[in-house]
C-alpha cells in the first residue's frame, strides 16, 4: 500500500478495478439473487421449486420415456412418457380419418398456406399485396377444393376430417372470416344510425355474455330446428359459423378500442376532403385504428385458436379430441398424460409464436411515438 502512494502524485493514480464481489458472475449473483436476507430466502424457495419440477419432468419426458415403435401399451416398458403411442397414432392425430391415399391434399393445402403467410409476415420479402390477395381471395377456393374435393378429386366428407388438420381448418377459417365481420360490427357500434347501432350493440353484448359452449350447442342442436324440413347445413360448417360469430364479437370490441383512439381531427379532415363514409373509413380511419389494435387482434386470434378445442364437446374430433380418444383406446389405456403433453406442445408452439410475433409487431409499430 505504502509504495503505491509513493509512486503516484495525488490525483494521478490509475483507476483500480472494481471489487471482485461487484462484477462478473459473483456480482450478478449478489445483485440479482442474494441482495438481502429476504431475497436469499426467495431464491432458495425458487431453487427448491425448480428442483421439484424440472428433474422429474425431464426424467418422465426424455430419460425414462419410451421412444420405440409399437402397437399397444405393452410396448411401453419404461416408467416415463409413452411416445410410442404418438408414433403409432401420428397419422390420426394429424389428419383424423382422412383417407390415407388422399393425405397429400392436406399437406399441399397447409404448405401453400404457410408459404404465403411467411411471405406476408416476414418483413423483407416482397410481393406483399399480391400474396395478401392470393391468401384472402384465391387461396380459400383452392383450399376448399383440395380438402373437400371436386374437379376430379374424390370427395372427402367433413366427418372424416379430424386431428390437427381440423384444428387448423377451424382456426384459419375462423380468423379469416371473423376479422371483416368484427370490423363491420365495430363500425356499426359507432354508427350514427340508431337502428344499426342497436343491432350491433345487442349482438356484441349478447355474444360476449354467454359461454362459447352454449353458442356451439345452439349451432349444433337448436339451429337445425330453425330451418325448414330438409334444408340443413354441414355439421362442421355450423360449428365453424358459431366460432366465427363468437370471435367476431370479441374482435369488434378490440377494434372499437382502436377506433376510439383516433383523434376527431382525422374524421373532420377526411370529411373536409369530401370523402364519404366508406372512403373515409377505408383510407383514413381503419388503417390507423387497425394498426393500433393489432396486438389485441392477435390475442383474439390466439384465443380463437385455443377455443377450437371446444368443438370436441359437440362431437368434432380435432387434435385434443383425437388425443383423448387415442388414450381411451383399449390398446393404449393409461397414456392420457403423454397424449396431453403432445397436444400441449403443439398448441404452445403455435400460440407462443403468434404472441411473440405480435410483441414484435407492437415494438415495430410503436417505434415512432413511444417515449
Amino acid at each position: 500500500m505504502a509504495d503505491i502512494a509513493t509512486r503516484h502524485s495525488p490525483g494521478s493514480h490509475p483507476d483500480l478495478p472494481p471489487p471482485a464481489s461487484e462484477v462478473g458472475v459473483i456480482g450478478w449473483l449478489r445483485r440479482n439473487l442474494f441482495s438481502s436476507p429476504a431475497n436469499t430466502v426467495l431464491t432458495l424457495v425458487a431453487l427448491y421449486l425448480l428442483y421439484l419440477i424440472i428433474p422429474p419432468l425431464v426424467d418422465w419426458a426424455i430419460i425414462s420415456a419410451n421412444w420405440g415403435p409399437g402397437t399397444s401399451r405393452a410396448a411401453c416398458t419404461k416408467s416415463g412418457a409413452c411416445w410410442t403411442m404418438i408414433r403409432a397414432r401420428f397419422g390420426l392425430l394429424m389428419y383424423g380419418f382422412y383417407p390415407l391415399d388422399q393425405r397429400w391434399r392436406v399437406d399441399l393445402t397447409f404448405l401453400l398456406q404457410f408459404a404465403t403467410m411467411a411471405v406476408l409476415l416476414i418483413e423483407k420479402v416482397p410481393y406483399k399485396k399480391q400474396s395478401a390477395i392470393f391468401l384472402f381471395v384465391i387461396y380459400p377456393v383452392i383450399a376448399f377444393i383440395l380438402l373437400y374435393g371436386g374437379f376430379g378429386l374424390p370427395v372427402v366428407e367433413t366427418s372424416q376430417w379430424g386431428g390437427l388438420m381440423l384444428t387448423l381448418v377451424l382456426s384459419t377459417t375462423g380468423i379469416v372470416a371473423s376479422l371483416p365481420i368484427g370490423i363491420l360490427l365495430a363500425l356499426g357500434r359507432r354508427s350514427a344510425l340508431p337502428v344499426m347501432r342497436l343491432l350491433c350493440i345487442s349482438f356484441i353484448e349478447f355474444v360476449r355474455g354467454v359461454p362459447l359452449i352454449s353458442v356451439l350447442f345452439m349451432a349444433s342442436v337448436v339451429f337445425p330446428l330453425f330451418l325448414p324440413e330438409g334444408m340443413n347445413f354441414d355439421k362442421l360448417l355450423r360449428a365453424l359459423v358459431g366460432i366465427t360469430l363468437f370471435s367476431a364479437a370479441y374482435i369488434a370490441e378490440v377494434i372499437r378500442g382502436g377506433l376510439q383512439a383516433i383523434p376527431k381531427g382525422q374524421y373532420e379532415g377526411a370529411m373536409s376532403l369530401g370523402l364519404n363514409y366508406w372512403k373515409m373509413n377505408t383510407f383514413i380511419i381503419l388503417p390507423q385504428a387497425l394498426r393500433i389494435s393489432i396486438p389485441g387482434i392477435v390475442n383474439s386470434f390466439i384465443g380463437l385458436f385455443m377455443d377450437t378445442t371446444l368443438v370436441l364437446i359437440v362431437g368434432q374430433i380435432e387434435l385434443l379430441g383425437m388425443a383423448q380418444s387415442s388414450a381411451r383406446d383399449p390398446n393404449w389405456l393409461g397414456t392420457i398424460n403423454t397424449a396431453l403433453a403432445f397436444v400441449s406442445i403443439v398448441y404452445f408452439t403455435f400460440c407462443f409464436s403468434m404472441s411473440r410475433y405480435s410483441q414484435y409487431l407492437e415494438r415495430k409499430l410503436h417505434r415512432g411515438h413511444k417515449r
Partner: protein
Amino acid sequence: MSVMSEARQAAGRRSLWQNELARGVILQILAAAIVLALTVFFVHNTTVNLAKRGIASGFGFLDGTAGFDISISLIPYTLQSSIGRAFLVGLMNTLLVSVIGVVLATLIGFVVGVARLSRNFLIAKLAAAYVDIIRNIPLLAQIIFWYFGVLASLPGVRQSLDFLNLKLLFLNTRGLYMPAPILQPGFWIIPAALVVGLIAAFFVRRWAHRRQELTGQQFPTFWTGLALIIGLPLLVGLVAGFHITFSLPMLKGFNFSGGMVVLPEFVAILLALSIYTGAFIAEIVRGGVQAISHGQTEAAYALGLRPSQTTRLVILPQALRIIVPPLTSQFLNLTKNSSLAVVIGYPELVSVFMGTVLNQTGQAVEVIAITMGVYLSISLVISALMNWYNRRIALVER
C-alpha cells in the same frame, strides 16, 4: 358534420339515395326488415318442427320430475325432484365454482404478477414461465389433465393418502374426505359476535380516519379491526362455548362414512380455472403496476412515506384504477369458462341443463334460452358491480 350534410343536401336532391338523411333511414328500415324477416322465418320453422315432433313449447316442463341423479348438490335433491330444482342445483354449482375460482385466481394472479416484477432474477423468470406456459395451452386440455391425468391416478379408497397420519383428511380417487362441522342449537352467538365485530371495526375506522384528519394522530386501525373481527367471536366462543361438533370420516368397508367429501370433478375444474385465469390476471397486475410512473414512488419517499405505505397509499390505488376493468372481464371469463366442466362431468349449469335436461325433454329452445339468460344476467350483475366500484375509485379531475 351538420354543415357538411346541409351542403350536401343543397348540392343534390336529385334522388333520395344521394340525400344522406334519407339514405340513413332507408338503410335502417332495410336492416330492421331483414332481421325481422329472419326472426319470423326462424320462429315459424321452429314452431312447425316442434309441432311435428310433438313437443309442447312453454316452461311447463320445469315442473316435471327430473328422474336423473346429480353427484354434487348444495340443496336437497333426489330423483323425484322437479327439473326446476335440477336447474337450481346446476346454477348453484356454477356459482360455487365461479366464486371460489375468482378468489383463488385473484390470489394467484396478484402473487405471480408481483413476482414477475421482482428484482430476484429466478423468481421473476419462474413467474414469467408460469404465465407463458399456462396462457398458451388450451383450458380444456388443462381441465382434462387435472381430472384424468392427476386426480384419476390417486390411490383407491383402501389405500387413501392420510394427511400427516392425523386420521382427519383422506385423499383418494373418490375425492378429498374431511371432517364436517355439525352446528348445535347455541351456535348462533358466534355469527352474532362476528357481525358485532364487523360493525364495531367499521365505526372505529371512521373515527380513526376523522381523528387523523383533524389532529394528524394515527391509530392502529388494521390491528384493532383484526382483533374486533376475529378476536371477538373467538372470545365469545371461549366464554359461551362454540356449540359445534365435527363428524369425522371413517373407513368402513369399501367406502368412507361420515365427514364430508370434495369430489375430484370439483377439485379438477377449480384448479384448472384458477391456475388458468390466474396467469391472465398476473399479466393484468404487472401491466397495472408498471403503468404507474416511477416519479410517484420517488415523490412518496420524498414525503417520508415508508415503502409499505407507498405501496398501499400511492401505488396500489392508482394501479387498481388500471387493473379493475380488465380484471372484471377475467372474472366473467372464469364464470363462462366454468361451463367447460361438462367434459369431466362436474354438474354445473350447462352440463345439467343443456346436457341432461335437453336430451331428456327435447325442449331445446327453452333450455338454451334459460341457460343463456342466466349467463347474460351473471355478466350484467358482475359488470354493474364492477362499474360501480370503478366509478368509486375513478380519478377525480378538475
